């Protein structure tokens, strides 16, 4: 498309947009914590339960009910704060954010306002070999809302619906909201930085064990703020906030789309409206949310039903000491330890095989064997079955046991695959499969001698050829022995045996 065409479509060509304007990003990520119970009540947080079966007087905001803070949720919030290099407040409070909405039973959200639990951190994001430091403004605790189903509208969306049905199972699930400072200076890389940041955050949260970070189930949600300023201008432009960005790919697309959309508006002298926008996964575009007639005034004030938090330093330090190795540091260490190329490492990452390889190595296999099994044979098996690698019914320990038998001799690679097939088919542990299927390289020398003698006797002419030094004829005898032993013999060993039987030097 020409510039004129794209502008006419309301978008500016991306490269041109970036030459004219500097994008400024702000990312707000909500993560649902993986606690057993909700933030302020003892209801379970299981995803996918029957509607309104995980509720109580507290999360339904019945008259008289009062909140009580989940200790584990606070611990997870501190964990997140520490992993993001934040300062942990020595004293902080919950606050009420007042606004009416049917999916929020109290009509206020118990959140944190000017006293968040974690402030001033950063997350280093690697992109195309360079490191971008994303500064974190704050991470604070709050609670999730219920879920509405809009009935009667054509699309199931809010517009045009006749009424709504509410399920409060999710109401009160603990959330930590992580807010970046404005991310400047990324220029053309802005959409990739946004994606890389959310990816790194997802990996970090996963390694911390504080959330299942399932974007598809809403346990990790990203709102992307984007504004443009004329290149070189230090002042920030008017921003939009795009919600409903439900995958890593969408984060990148939504930012990219907003850059081209806002650039087109600015180029024609149109002001950007500060608004909430909605990302459409199918078209990759954003559209304005329905704006409210009046600007919200949340009337924050300290939550009087809860007392302040003053995390003891010993507690915070104990949490800090228990933090796992950061995922990217662990990865770099593994790549070095395993001697993998960048490409090999990237393939392992892409197939989510790193943890499996690591566990297989921990169980005694060599990194090369472990990498090779998970990325080739098991990768194919996962493909065939249409499941993720870690959903295959074989454990790293089982694979390591199979690999050990190859290294020690009793199995060759071909038979080892049959053993793995048996494990995958649910036939039991590798030893059970070997026994049941009668697998294993023939190690009984007597039987092998007999088989060799038999083959030589059956083909005397070939035996003579070998005796006369025509070594290429050995293959025929080896083939016959392998056939007779149904492939369970070690071919190299058979060859050796044929030659020694005939008294020929190999």
């Amino acid at each position, binding site marked *: 498309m020409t510039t004129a065409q794209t502008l006419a479509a309301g978008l500016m060509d991306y490269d041109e947009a970036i030459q004219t304007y500097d994008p400024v990003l702000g990312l707000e990520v909500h993560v649902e914590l993986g606690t057993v119970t909700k933030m302020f009540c003892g209801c379970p947080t299981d995803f996918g339960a029957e509607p309104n079966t995980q509720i109580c007087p507290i999360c339904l905001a019945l*008259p008289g009910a009062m909140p*009580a803070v989940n200790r584990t949720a606070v611990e997870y919030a501190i964990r997140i704060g520490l992993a993001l290099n934040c300062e942990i407040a020595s004293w902080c409070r919950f606050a009420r954010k007042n606004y009416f909405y049917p999916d929020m039973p109290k009509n206020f959200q118990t959140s944190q306002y000017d006293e968040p639990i974690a402030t001033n951190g950063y997350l280093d994001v690697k992109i195309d070999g360079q490191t971008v430091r994303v500064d974190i403004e704050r991470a604070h605790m709050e609670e999730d809302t219920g879920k509405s189903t809009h009935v009667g509208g054509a699309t199931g969306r809010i517009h045009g619906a006749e009424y*709504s049905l509410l399920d409060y199972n999710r109401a009160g699930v603990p959330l930590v909201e992580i807010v970046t400072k404005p991310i400047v200076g990324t220029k053309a890389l802005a959409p990739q930085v946004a994606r890389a940041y959310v990816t790194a955050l997802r990996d970090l949260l996963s390694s911390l064990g504080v959330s299942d970070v399932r974007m598809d189930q809403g346990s990790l949600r990203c709102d992307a703020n984007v504004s443009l300023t004329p290149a070189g201008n230090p002042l920030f432009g008017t921003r939009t906030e795009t919600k409903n960005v439900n995958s890593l790919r969408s984060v990148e697309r939504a930012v990219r789309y907003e850059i081209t959309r806002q650039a087109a508006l600015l180029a024609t002298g149109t002001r950007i409206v500060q608004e909430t926008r909605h990302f459409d996964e199918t078209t990759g575009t954003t559209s304005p949310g329905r704006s409210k007639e009046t600007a919200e005034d949340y009337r924050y004030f300290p939550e009087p039903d809860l007392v302040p938090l003053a995390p003891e330093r010993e507690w915070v330090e104990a949490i800090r000491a228990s933090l796992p190795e950061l995922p990217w540091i662990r990865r770099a260490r593994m790549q070095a330890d395993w001697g993998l190329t960048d490409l090999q490492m990237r393939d392992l990452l892409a197939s989510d095989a790193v943890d499996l390889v690591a566990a297989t190595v921990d169980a005694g296999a060599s990194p090369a064997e472990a990498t090779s099994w998970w990325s080739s044979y098991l990768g194919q098996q996962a493909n065939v079955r249409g499941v993720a690698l870690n959903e295959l019914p074989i454990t790293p320990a089982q694979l390591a046991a199979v690999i050990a038998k190859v290294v020690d001799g009793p199995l060759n690679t071909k038979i080892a695959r049959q053993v793995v097939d048996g494990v995958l088919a649910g036939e039991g542990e590798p030893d059970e499969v070997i026994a049941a299927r009668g697998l294993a390289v023939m190690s009984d020398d007597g039987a092998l001698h007999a088989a060799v003698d038999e083959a030589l006797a059956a083909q005397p002419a070939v035996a003579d050829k070998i005796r006369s030094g025509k070594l290429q004829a050995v293959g025929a005898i080896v083939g016959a022995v392998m056939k007779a032993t149904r492939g369970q013999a070690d071919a190299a060993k058979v060859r050796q045996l044929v030659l020694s039987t005939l008294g020929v030097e190999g």
Partner: protein
Amino acid sequence: MTAELTRLGASALAEAIASGQSSAEEVTRAHLDRIEAVDEAVHAFLHVSTESALDQARAVDRARALGDAPVSRLAGVPLALKDIVVQAGVPATAGSKILEGWIPPYDATVTRRLVEAGVVILGKTNLDEFAMGSSTENSAYGPTRNPWDLSRIPGGSGGGSAAALAAFEAPLAIGTDTGGSIRQPAAVTGTVGTKPTYGGVSRYGVIALASSLDQVGPCARTVLDTALLHEVIAGHDPLDSTSIPQPVPLVVDAVRRGQADGVAGMRIGVVSQLRGKGYQAGVLESFDAAVATLAAAGADIVEVDCPHFEYALAAYYLILPSECSSNLARFDAMRYGLRVGDDGTASAEEVMSRTRGAGFGAEVKRRIILGTYALSAGYYDAYYGSAQKVRTLIKQDFEKAFTAADVLVSPASPVTAFAIGEKVNDPLAMYLNDLATIPGSLAGIPAMSVPSGIASDTGLPVGLQIMGPALGEERIYRVAAAFESAYVAAHHRSVPDAAPELEVGVR
């Protein structure tokens, strides 16, 4: 016979039941009969739980028949529960139309403790809507009348509970006190009521008005009965994060000490700021007589100065509306309670507004708007923020006063019961009824009202407020018991015993 049972206090009834002199069922029936006879005139109750009360009483009798020891010192004694405390399966309205017909599916912690103690819950008592008021005229279900004079108010917001005691419909009652809603009704009905230290009694299951001020408390006709009920309901509750994780003060022992040893050697402070302008002559006269009685009993009377009390009412009427505007947001027609204007085309937002417009009374709406204003961006610091600082100044005044005195005293209400309708159109005049009780509410200290006598100018009861430092319940009960004993010794009967008979035919 049954009429006599209703004249007895809770401790006497508990003894009669424990000794087998009366059955709990008999006691309960006597009170249900009394309610039947007088409540049409008094209107203390919004709901009478006849069946569940009798079931509870029979359970106490059965346990006794099996030889079990009483589950508490109040087993089998009837009680009137303010209709802002939820009881599973029993309607709860908070005096508001917006909750009409709502049946809570759970028990408040206080309710659970009462039931576990074998206390028989007779029913739910009337109150100003969401406890906002000082006369019980703000109830959506009509006013309660003062048993001393049926044309007068019983105080508020706990007018129903106080009137039930004064009308001998129940020997025990539960109140809630945010700015005086236990103490002021106790004062104007000649009964006893205590607001414990903030956090002393669980608020879980108590429909919130202002979370940082609300306290549940015991009410009765004698100091001992009040103390017995206090020990049943008080104590730490993990469901209320603001509840104090400490042992319950031993207020019953303190009452016995007060009855036996009096107040000799105690320093009793009279707060200069809680008398004078705004106080009725008959109230001050009764108060001065009470102070003289305490002095005669050997107490050192000292004058204390609390200069910031002047600002207490102003701070209170910023903090309370702010918190209540948020607490009452949940009444939105979506999950429970009234729904108005759902015509199939109106939006949820419109239905919320219509329902809240129709379901809340004038005082509730006034305070919600005021609170919404006080919390608004740009006003928060000047209003809510400043009010919280005034609260600090008032706390400091109290701390200083309690270095000079063991307890502080004042009239509990500046006036005796006024006529129904007299102040309904003047919110500010109504707010002044809590002039003496609000400082203690803001500071979170324990305070109670005991009858100091009958005002010579109106012939109506007057309340003496006794305030102690945080967790100083034992002191105030001791002084209250000593005063009550001295009063009875001098007048040969207690103030509540002087309440009119209400023209009940002999049954």
